[in-house]
C-alpha cells in the first residue's frame, strides 16, 4: 500500500472545483423555478382563451378576436386553439399547460369537464351574474334552463352555455325509400325503431348496416339508458341555485331545478341498464347495428351520405357536417330519439370556464358575456357546426341551405322534453368514460356476455368514483 499525499497543486485544483460547484448550486437554488410563462412572448398581458382547435378554425378565431377588440379595445385577447381529438384529449392538454405554468385565463369546457373544472380549477360566476343581472336578462330568457343547470355545480354557476348538442336520430331518406318506410313519427317507440332497422336491412345489400353508433359518453349507449329511464350513475340534484332561477326564469321553468347535477353511485348492474345493453347486443347479433368499436365519427359522414348507413344518433352539429360533405338538405332528416320507458334524451353543452389562477378575472368575465351575445354566436356558428344555446337563433333561415327539414327538433328536444338531461359527467369523468368504453365493448360481444361485463363495469366504476380527482 502506498501512502500518497496530495500535492499543493492538487489541493488547490479540487478546492477550485468545489468552490465552482458550490457557486453554481447556490445560483441555481436562488433562482425561482422557471416555468413556461418565462418564455419570452408568453406572458404579454393578454387575456388568454383556450379553445378546442378543430371546433375553432382560423375564421372563428378571427371573428372572436376582432369582434371583442371592437367592444373592448383596452383588453388584449389571445385565442389559443388547442388541437385535440376529443374533449378528454383537450382537457389533458389544458392541464399540461397549467402544470407548465402557462394556464390560460379561460377554457372552453364541454359538459364532460364542467364538474372537473368547477371542483378543482374554476371560479363561480355567481357574483358577476348577480351584478350584471339586467344585462344578462335577455341571455337567460333565450337559453333553456336545462342548459344553464348543466353548467352549475353545487349551487353555483360556472359557465354560460353558448352551444349544445342533443342526441337526436338522423335518418337517410334514400335508405328509407329503399326500405319502403316512411319518416318516423315524433313519438316513435323502440319497437318501431327495431322494425325500421329490419326493413332497412332486408332492402339493402350485405355491405349495409342500418344503425351506426359510436362508443362514447355522448351518443353511445347512454341515450338508450336515458330512454329506458335509468343512468350509468345515480343522478340527483344539488341543493341551491335559487338565486339564479328566481332571478331569471318564470315559475314553470324553475320547477324541479336545483344547484346542478350530482352523479354518485354506480348502477351498471341495475336491471334497466342490463336491459338496455341486452337490447343493443341483440341488434349487434342480428346485424342491425355496428359493433361499438367499429363506429367512430371519422368515417360516419362518409358511410351515411353514401347510403351505407340508415340511422345514427347525432346533434345539430351534423347539419353543417353533412352539408360540407355534399349531402343535400332534403336527403336526410332528424327525429327525436325513440321512446322506450321514457323519451328522455341526452345532451352535452359547452361554454367558457374562468380559472382560479387567472389574474384578469374582470376582463375574463367581459369576454364570457361577449361570447354569449347573440351577434357573436351568429357570426361564430354560421355554418351550423353546432346547435346554438340561444333558442332565437334556430330559425328556418338558418337551416334553409343545410337542412334538415325537421330542424325544430334540435331545440324542441329541450322545450318539449324538459327532463332531457346532460351526459353523466362527475369530476371523475375521464375514468368513468374509460370504464364505460372498455366494458361496453366486452358486453356487446354476445347477449350472454352482457351480465358478466356489467358486473366488472360496476366494480371498476365503484373504484373510479372512490378516487379523489
Amino acid at each position, binding site marked *: 500500500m502506498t501512502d500518497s499525499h496530495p500535492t499543493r497543486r492538487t489541493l488547490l485544483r479540487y478546492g477550485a472545483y468545489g468552490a465552482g460547484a458550490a457557486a453554481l448550486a447556490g445560483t441555481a437554488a436562488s433562482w425561482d423555478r422557471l416555468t413556461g410563462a418565462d418564455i419570452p412572448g408568453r406572458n404579454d398581458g393578454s387575456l388568454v382563451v383556450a379553445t378546442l382547435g378543430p371546433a375553432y378554425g382560423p375564421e372563428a378565431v378571427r371573428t372572436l378576436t376582432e369582434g371583442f377588440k371592437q367592444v373592448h379595445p383596452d383588453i388584449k385577447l389571445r385565442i389559443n386553439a388547442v388541437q385535440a381529438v376529443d374533449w*378528454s384529449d383537450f382537457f*389533458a392538454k389544458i*392541464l*399540461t399547460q*397549467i*402544470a407548465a405554468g402557462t394556464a390560460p385565463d379561460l377554457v372552453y369546457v364541454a359538459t364532460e369537464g364542467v364538474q372537473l373544472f368547477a371542483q*378543482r*380549477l374554476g371560479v363561480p360566476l355567481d357574483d358577476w351574474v348577480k351584478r350584471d343581472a339586467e344585462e344578462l336578462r335577455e341571455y337567460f330568457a333565450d337559453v333553456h334552463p336545462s342548459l344553464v343547470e348543466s353548467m352549475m355545480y353545487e349551487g353555483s354557476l360556472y359557465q354560460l352555455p353558448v352551444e349544445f348538442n342533443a342526441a337526436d336520430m338522423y335518418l337517410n331518406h334514400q335508405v328509407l325509400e329503399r326500405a319502403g318506410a316512411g319518416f318516423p313519427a315524433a313519438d316513435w317507440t323502440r319497437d318501431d325503431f327495431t322494425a325500421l332497422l329490419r326493413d332497412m336491412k332486408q332492402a339493402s345489400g*350485405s*355491405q349495409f*348496416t342500418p344503425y*351506426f353508433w359510436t362508443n362514447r359518453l355522448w351518443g353511445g349507449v347512454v341515450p338508450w339508458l336515458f330512454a329506458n329511464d335509468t343512468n350509468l350513475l345515480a343522478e340527483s340534484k344539488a341543493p341551491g341555485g335559487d338565486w339564479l332561477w328566481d332571478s331569471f326564469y318564470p315559475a314553470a321553468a324553475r320547477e324541479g331545478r336545483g344547484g346542478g347535477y350530482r352523479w354518485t353511485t354506480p348502477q351498471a348492474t341495475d336491471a334497466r341498464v342490463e336491459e338496455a345493453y341486452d337490447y343493443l347486443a341483440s341488434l349487434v347479433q342480428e346485424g342491425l347495428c*355496428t*359493433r*361499438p*368499436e*367499429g363506429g*367512430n365519427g*371519422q*368515417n360516419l359522414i362518409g*358511410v351515411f351520405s353514401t347510403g*351505407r348507413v340508415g340511422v345514427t344518433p347525432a346533434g345539430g352539429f351534423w347539419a353543417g357536417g353533412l352539408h360540407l360533405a355534399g349531402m343535400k338538405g332534403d336527403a336526410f332528416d332528424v327525429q327525436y330519439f325513440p321512446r322506450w320507458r321514457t323519451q328522455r334524451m341526452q345532451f352535452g353543452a359547452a361554454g367558457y370556464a374562468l380559472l382560479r389562477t387567472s389574474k384578469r378575472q374582470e376582463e375574463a368575465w367581459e369576454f364570457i358575456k361577449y361570447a354569449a351575445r347573440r351577434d357573436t354566436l351568429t357570426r361564430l356558428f354560421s355554418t351550423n357546426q353546432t346547435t346554438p344555446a340561444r333558442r332565437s337563433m334556430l330559425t328556418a333561415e338558418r337551416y334553409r341551405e343545410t337542412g334538415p327539414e325537421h330542424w325544430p327538433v334540435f331545440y324542441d328536444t329541450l322545450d318539449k322534453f324538459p327532463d332531457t338531461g346532460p351526459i353523466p359527467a362527475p369530476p371523475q369523468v*375521464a*375514468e368513468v368514460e*374509460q370504464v364505460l*368504453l*372498455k*366494458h361496453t*365493448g*366486452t358486453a356487446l*360481444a354476445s347477449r350472454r356476455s352482457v351480465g358478466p*361485463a356489467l358486473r366488472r363495469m360496476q366494480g371498476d366504476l365503484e373504484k373510479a368514483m372512490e*378516487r379523489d*380527482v
Partner: protein
Amino acid sequence: MTNTQIPAVRPQPPAAPPAPAPRRSARDRGTRLLATLFLAPTIVGIVVFTVVPIIGSVVLSLFHWNVIDDPSFAGAANYREAFTDSTVLVSFGNTLLFMVLAVALQLVIALVLALAVNGRMPVWLRSVFRSAFFFPLVLSAASISVVMKYLFNQDFGVVNWLLGLVGVAPVPWLTSENAAMATVILVYVWQQFGFSFLLFVGGLNNIPKEIHEAASLDGATGLRKHLGITLPLLSPTLLVASVVGIINALQVFEQPYVLTNGGPGDATRTVVMVIYESAFEQLRFGAASAVGVLLFVLIMAVTALQFRLSRRFVHYQ
C-alpha cells in the same frame, strides 16, 4: 522432432521499479478537450432528456400528483397498486405476448425477404424491393394506423369487402378479442420489419462469398447452407435486430391506441397505453410513473437476458 520441455512457470525477471507516469503533453490535453467538446452535446442531451426524466419518474412514482395540487408522498403505494390492478397486470401480459409474436414474426419475415432480395435478380428490381420494404418505416405509425382502421373496419372496410367478393363472411378484425391482437400485430409488423430487413441485407452482404462457395464444393445445398453458414454468421446482426425489436415492441402504443383503443375490453391494452391513460386522462402521474419504472426494469431485464444468452448463440467471425 525435438521434445522440448516447457516449464510450467517461466522465471520472471526481477521487477523493475515503477516508471513515473508520463506527463500529458499539451497536445494530448488539447485532443482530450476537443473530444470532450464534441461529446458534450450528446452527453448533455442524454442527461437532460434521458437520465433526468428517468430519475424524475422514479421520484414521481413515490408521490401522488394530479398536476393541479402539490404532490403528496405515497411511499410504495403506487407500486402496490400496480401489482394488484387487474388492468395493469393484463397490460403487461398483453405487452409480453405482443413482444414475442411481433418480434418473432418481424424477424422471420425480414430474414426471408432479405435472403430473397439477396438472391439472383436484376439490380433495379433489388432496389425496388429494398425501397418498398423499408418505406412503411418512414411513415408515421399513427397515420398508418388510421388508414388500417378504415381498411379493417368490420362493416365498411375494404378488406372485408374484398373477402365478401369471394364469399367470405365479414371478419371482426378489430372487434373480437382474438382477432384484434392479431390485427394489431400484423399492422405493427408490416410497418416495422423494414428495419430488420435492412440490417439483414447489410449482414448478408458482409458474409464472404468464398465461404458459401467452399460449402457448395463440399456438397451443401440451399437450406443446409443457410442453417449451417448464413445463420451463424448473421447471428450478431440477429442479436442487434432482436434487441432493437424487443425494446420497440415493449413500448408499443400508437397502433393499439388508434386501431382498437385497447379493446375489446382490455384485449389489446399495452403498458404504455396504461401509462398514458393514468397520467393524461386520469391525472394520476405517480401511478403512471410507477408503471413506467416497472416497464423500464422489464426492458432492462429482457435486454440483459438477451446479451447473456447471446454468448451462447452469437458467433463473431
